[in-house]
């Protein structure tokens, strides 16, 4: 398969000008001066780095409370799972499922999916290109919906400030959780889906882009 990469053609991300790549590894667009890359630079390494960071933060995001609720009836600290359990026990099953899917399942699925993509690309797997691309698009699409919890906490913290009566304070878990979502979104962005089709032969150059 002849690709732009095989013909040493580079497309500019900014102005779209296609130009011939020179001998040097680094090139710039002759029209607008933007740095040109055949593939996203350091794509796999960055994806891995962000994925690892997200995985590290995934633990405190689920263990630590994301919200402290203080009211005249007492204070309460909720983690994501305790919130889900609370919703489930009190009978709000649809809501419990939504929160569980958006806040627990999706981030985990994203981490696993990206890790799977990165591993297969690194190993130069030639199978199921189409499925893997679909998986990647799905990951990119659903990524933002995981911020649901953060929005809820942010809204409550802003709205429920009744001094001694009731107060909602975001907990450290919220920070970690937000970081997880952002990091997985970044990881999905830095991952270059074109790598899925790159041949095993090109894999030597892959790291350099």
């Amino acid at each position, binding site marked *: *398969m*002849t690709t732009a990469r095989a*013909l040493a*053609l*580079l497309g500019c991300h900014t102005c779209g*000008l*296609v*130009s*011939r*790549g*020179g*001998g*040097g*590894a*680094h*090139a*710039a*667009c*002759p*029209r607008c*001066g933007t*740095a*040109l890359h055949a593939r996203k630079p*350091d794509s796999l*390494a*960055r994806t891995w*780095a*962000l994925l*690892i*960071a*997200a995985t*590290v*933060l995934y*633990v*405190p995001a689920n263990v*630590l409370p994301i919200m402290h609720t203080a009211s005249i*009836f*007492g*204070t*309460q600290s909720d983690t994501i799972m305790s919130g889900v359990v609370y919703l489930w026990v009190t009978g709000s099953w649809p809501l419990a499922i939504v929160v569980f899917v958006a806040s627990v399942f999706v981030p985990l699925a994203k981490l696993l999916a990206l890790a799977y993509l990165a591993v297969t690309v690194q190993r130069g797997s030639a199978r199921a290109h189409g499925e893997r691309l679909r998986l990647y698009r799905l990951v990119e699409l659903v990524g933002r919906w995981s911020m649901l919890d953060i929005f809820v906490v942010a809204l409550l913290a802003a709205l429920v400030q009744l001094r001694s009566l009731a107060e909602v304070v975001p907990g*450290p878990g919220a*920070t*970690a959780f937000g*970081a997880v979502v952002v*990091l997985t979104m970044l990881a999905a962005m*830095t991952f270059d889906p074109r790598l899925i089709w790159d041949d095993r032969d090109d894999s030597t150059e892959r790291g350099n882009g």
Partner: protein
Amino acid sequence: MAEREPSVDVSALPQAVAEPPRRSRVSLVWLVPLLALAIAGWLAWHTLSQRGPTVTILFQDAEGIEAGKTRVRYKSVDVGTVKAVELTPDRKLVRVVAELRPDAGDWLVQDSRFWVVRPRVGAAGVSGLGTLFSGAYIGMEVGKSGEEAREFRGLDVPPIVTEGLPGRQFVLRADVLGSLERGTPVFFRRIPVGQVIAYRLVPGGGGVDVQIFVDAPYDQYVTQNARFWHASGIDIELSAGGVNVRTESLASIIGGGIAFQAPPDEGLAPPAEAGAAFRLFATRAEAIAPDPGRVDRYVLYFSESVRGLAPGAPVEFRGISLGVVRDIAVEFDFDSQRFRIPVAIDLYPEKLASRAIPGVKQQQIGRREALDALIAKGFRGQLRTGNLITGQLYVALDLFPNAPKAGIDWSGDPPILPTMPGALTEAQESIGAILRKVEKVPFDRIGADVEKALASLDATLKRVEQLAANVDRDLTPEMRATLAQAQQTLAAAERTMTAAQGTVGADGALATELRDAIRELTRTMQSVRTLTDYLERNPEALIRGKRPEGTP
């Protein structure tokens, strides 16, 4: 696609500008996971460092305690939160798990105390009012022990005196608790200076140990010779001495109290050690009473009823208290086949001696000689009524010169003093004599006589009745005739009167005639006037007679 060559001439495309290679080969992107690790590590450390020690407190009852809401407070400062409330496996107690502040680790020592603060209303006051709205909380007090502990047994009632309050604790040994309670005030010269903090039965149940706490400036007045007594409520004392009412303060009337004071006639004593034990007397008089000194025990045998005599009743000599009744029992003497009642008394012979015999002699004359001499003079014990209303008895020791001869029985242990029948017994005997005389009155005969008298009275009454009947029968008709006649007479009189009225009345004949006569008389008078007028004008007519009409 592989077969088709691109139709575009690649060489026509512009050449990309070559750039010098970047210097750093290590991608900065790896800082991100490092940063994430740092953040996660910090979060974990922060969370763990915020987490304080957990304690397990066992309570009888978890009323008002809620997991996640109930606070643990030390000196009214929040130091923790209850995390879980659960039952012990045997379901006898409630296990409350609370998480304290991170720096509370060394507060949890063996003698730290926990209790539940709820609103409480007692005689000593109202406490925990704030918890009405905020809900109950767990109070905490840090102990002094060096040994750490994580499991505690919660107190059922809040401690009254918290650790570190200046003052001292003392123990009072009492016979009964009275109206004392935790929190009951302790008074010194009617100033509330402390509180009862605890009480418990002494092992064996032979008394009550009351722990009191006296606040700092006042604890110096608890001297080694201090006497404590019940100032419980209204102290009503019913004794042979009469009714004696005494109170310490209004609060103590409601809630009772304890008062203390050094005996007034004793000098200043050094302050008592903390934890010193004192006796708790029932009354102030008992507490303040000077030490009676030596105590001699004697027994008095009485044959009469001792109803009204109680242990503690006074033993008096002409009104001066010489001792108290210690014990009363009853014995059956097989030799004489009689019951007798031994009354054991405590005599304070020093009181007697100091009054009866001057000090020097007292030493020379022994107890026996002195008493033997007194008994020879008629010194006897006797039961007397101290109070006529309540019937309280006391033992009187007095001289009865006419008493039959008797001696003191020194062989008995305690020695037996001779007695005299009491005044009450004498009175009873004389009443018995009166009753015997009354018995001799022939009530039967008197009854028969009365019966006879009643019968004759009955006959008399019957005769009176007959007489009345006779009167009715004989006299009444005659009286009736007389009455009829009288009626007739009256009718006649009435008729006469009517006739008289007809004659005299306005339309009667007499009146008519009288009117006619008057009219006639009037007419006559008119004729006379006419005649006189005519004669005035024509006096000659008297002589010539009347002139015919029309003549001048």
